[in-house]
């Protein structure tokens, strides 16, 4: 503002005088501000007519604006504007955009999806989102799992089976790991022998006599390990018992234990206390059948097949 203009602007007083000489300037609001104010008042009135606004008695004014959506029964409905209907409308649009893919997904077999390059890239991108939201808290980003907590999904060891149908069953219904505790059933000496027997599969330098005693015990009725883990100690997928002969460990952290005695101790902890953990929640109800199917292929891609 130039100096001359500033001088030209001589403020008027309101005419009020207090205490003899106390006066009050009258600086009216600029016109552009007043116009914006009146415009917003007009906008508010229009808004009241368009959207839900005023409460009256037991109900409220619903406004003239409407939303049309299709519900899950395929019925088209038009209701007054509200966020719940808006969500349905937006979901409809998104579902429509993804429909060709999901239609294809539900019509194809797992093997076909895995082989189809277009579907496979859909599975990879959509599956990554689903996996991060729902599976990664336990199985970790990337699916490498956590020793002592949740199995690694990228290796070839599958407690309940790594084929499509088995993975699908696991995700749909969930799992619950169980092994009875052997404290009081077996002596400390016997447990050491069993641990040595298991360690001998990995060619750890354990006492051969102790490992052989463990072998006897494993297949005896005293410990009866073979009931669940099988005569070959390779586990049984039907009940999710672990394969003890591969070098993959979920509960006893054998690879991290430095000495043989530590490794034995890690295994003995599991034998002593048993397991009543490894709970995988059931996902049916939370995820749709198609989402579970998509996740199945995604998880299978990580390292399934065995």
């Amino acid at each position, binding site marked *: 503002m130039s100096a001359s203009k500033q001088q030209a602007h001589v403020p008027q007083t309101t005419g009020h005088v207090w205490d003899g000489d106390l006066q009050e300037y009258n600086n009216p609001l600029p016109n552009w501000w007043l116009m914006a104010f009146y415009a917003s008042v007009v906008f508010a009135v229009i808004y009241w007519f368009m959207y839900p606004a005023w*409460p009256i008695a037991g109900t409220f004014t619903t406004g003239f604006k409407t939303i049309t959506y299709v519900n899950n029964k395929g019925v088209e409905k038009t209701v007054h504007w509200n*966020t719940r209907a808006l969500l349905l409308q937006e979901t409809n649009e998104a579902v429509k955009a993804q429909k060709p893919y999901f239609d294809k997904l539900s019509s194809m077999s797992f093997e076909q999806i895995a082989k189809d390059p277009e579907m496979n890239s859909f599975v990879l991108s959509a599956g990554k989102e689903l996996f991060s939201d729902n599976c990664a808290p336990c199985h970790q980003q990337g699916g490498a799992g956590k020793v002592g907590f949740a199995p690694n999904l990228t290796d070839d060891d599958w407690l309940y089976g790594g084929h499509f149908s088995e993975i699908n069953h696991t995700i749909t219904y969930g799992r619950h790991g169980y092994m009875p505790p052997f404290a009081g059933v077996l002596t400390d000496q016997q447990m050491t022998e069993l641990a040595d027997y298991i360690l001998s599969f990995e060619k750890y330098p354990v006492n051969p006599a102790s490992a052989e005693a463990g072998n006897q015990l494993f297949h005896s009725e005293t410990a009866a390990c073979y009931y669940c883990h099988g005569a070959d100690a390779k586990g049984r997928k039907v009940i999710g018992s672990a394969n003890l002969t591969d070098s993959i460990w979920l509960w006893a952290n054998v690879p991290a234990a430095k000495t043989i005695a530590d490794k034995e101790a890690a295994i003995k902890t599991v034998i002593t206390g048993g397991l009543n953990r490894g709970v995988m929640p059931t996902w049916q109800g939370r995820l749709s059948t198609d989402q579970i199917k998509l996740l199945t292929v995604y998880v299978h891609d990580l390292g399934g097949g065995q």
Partner: protein
Amino acid sequence: MFKHEWLETNIGLLTILTMLAISIGGLVEIAPLFFIKNTVEKVDGVRPYTPLELRGRDIYQREGCYLCHSQMIRPFRDEALRYGHYSLAAESQYDHPFQWGSKRTGPDLARVGKKYSNEWMVAHLVSPRSLVPESVMPNFPWLLTTQLDYSDIEDRMRALRIAGVPYSLTKAEYDANVKKFGKQTADMLDINKARQNLIKQAEDNDYDGDPSNISEMDALVAYLQVLGTMVDFSKYDDDEFVKYR
């Protein structure tokens, strides 16, 4: 004739009329919600918390979980994809105070119930970064080692009963609960059996993986595992709750 000068020169009048103007604003915004019939959706399954879950809720508040976690899934597509069905007013009708929250540093917990195993909940509360490396949540290890104090559980339920939560003291109230929630739930809501119910639920479910005692972890996990699980949404059309808006 009314003159603005009266207001400006009369502090008493100015105070009274200012308060009047503000309370009209408040009344218009808040009061109608008590009278609009459709605010709370008619839906099956919502029940007050069991004594153990109630103590878990108290611990949730004590530890300030609501400062980072909301319990209010808004009707947005991204929230529906991540958390599930939007929250209903009916689902927090027995919450005093409700835990909707507004600070969303952590994920919304309105439907966290049954999403993870008890074991995950315990491990994660003790040390969140052991499972979610990028988490900024504090550790809460003392929950596991602190015995749950339930000596005043009856008083806590009695207080909520005054606030309108249907915990029963008399035979008539119990019968009304049987009619409304079924016998099994009504038994859990009986203040006279609160203590034994709390102990039984903790022992039966062993939420914290240590059957030898009832820790604060037992209560908190029991509470978290029931969040958002009471309503079976598969029973309703996806637009069932539109008419309540």
